[in-house]
């Protein structure tokens, strides 16, 4: 059909033209949707945080590092532990939410847990994403008894403020004795353990970093108050 070789100029010209059209297309789409994509993301996150910390109406994202806490907007990515401070309508700090993840039965289980600095306890848990077996592993979302573990899960720090005084751990169904223990769901031990492991690992990292700065977070709520 096309016996003569095409000149390089023609190839470059065409590719350039196509690249230009496509570039315009992609950039337009990107710019056009950016705002709404970000809004969607924020809404989804807020929804999850507010669900975990009842009563909260607005939140701020922070990153905790050994050097202190900084608002997430300016912080370079993955430089520390990300968390969300949730405030009520009056700008009062209701609690702190953070994401935690661990491997469950069929993949990563990601949860959002709420920490109440006043009570030094974990006060809520929402499963953000999981691939666990329907009917078994996904009980961690709705199972009332399991959720009850996270109403007041002891998360006090040790005297040196370097780690939890009592590591959070998952125990066999029906054998919960201490306030820092989580009673596993019978038949869904693996997923229960994953949730516990995730929360413990995250709390062990985050809470010591936060300890000094709770007051600052309380103040931060005022800045954004209504």
């Amino acid at each position, binding site marked *: 059909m096309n016996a003569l070789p095409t000149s390089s100029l023609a190839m470059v010209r065409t590719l350039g033209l196509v690249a230009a059209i496509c570039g315009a297309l992609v950039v337009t789409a990107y710019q056009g949707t950016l705002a709404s994509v970000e809004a969607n993301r924020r809404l989804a996150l807020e929804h999850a945080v507010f669900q975990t910390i009842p009563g909260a109406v607005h939140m701020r994202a922070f990153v905790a590092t050994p050097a202190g806490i900084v608002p997430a907007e300016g912080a370079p990515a993955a430089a520390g532990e990300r968390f969300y401070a949730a405030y009520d309508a009056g700008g009062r700090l209701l609690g702190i939410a953070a994401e935690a*993840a661990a491997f469950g039965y*069929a993949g990563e289980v990601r949860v959002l847990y709420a920490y109440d600095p006043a009570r030094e306890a974990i006060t809520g848990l929402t499963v953000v994403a999981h691939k666990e077996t329907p009917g078994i592993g996904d009980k961690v979302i709705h199972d009332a008894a399991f959720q009850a573990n996270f109403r007041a899960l002891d998360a006090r720090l040790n005297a040196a403020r370097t780690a939890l005084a009592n590591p959070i751990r998952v125990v066999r169904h029906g054998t919960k004795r201490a306030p820092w223990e989580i009673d596993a769901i019978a038949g869904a031990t*693996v997923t229960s353990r994953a949730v516990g492991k995730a929360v413990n690992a995250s709390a062990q990292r985050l809470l010591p970093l936060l300890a000094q700065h709770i007051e600052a977070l309380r103040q931060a709520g005022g800045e954004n108050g209504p």
Partner: protein
Amino acid sequence: MADIPLAQLFLTTVLANNFVLAMFLGLCPFLGVSGRLATAAPMGAATTFVMLVASLCAYGLNALLTWLGLEFLRLIAYIAVIASAVQLVEMVLKKYSPALFRALGIYLPLITTNCAILGVALFQTAREYSFIQSLVFATGAGAGFTLALVLMAGLRERLRLAAVPDPVQGTALALILAGLLSLTFMGFTGLGVGE
């Protein structure tokens, strides 16, 4: 990203999250080339090799694009780089290892349109794997692809001699076999969490 031991990452990618049988990636070559053992194994090897190359490229490219703040060009960049990488691999092989080229050559063009390759690049980016993790992931994906391909080829060669009813012949049979293999591989779910 929760920390995951490399061995577990590898085994999970090969077995429980097998690219073909659990993630539905690379189905076209899987259904197309699994008819005979003689072609299945070299195809698997070629794919694994290209996956590694693609994973390497994607890792570097992603770092570059992130640094430039051009993440929205990621897909276009990946697909272009992978296509060129395959070309390059083909040329290098032809020049330096003609024997290997003859063995893998006919499969290389097929691989370009294999979504498993792009899948490796996209998944390792989405899951924010480290460099080493990416390589292990790519190797595991390739090994899993090869494993599925070889198992399937064995079964299909044997079923060629069976009295399979007419309406089941062809793609329908291949899909049902793949389903049964997939069911089998569900036994590996949760590998490494038992202890």
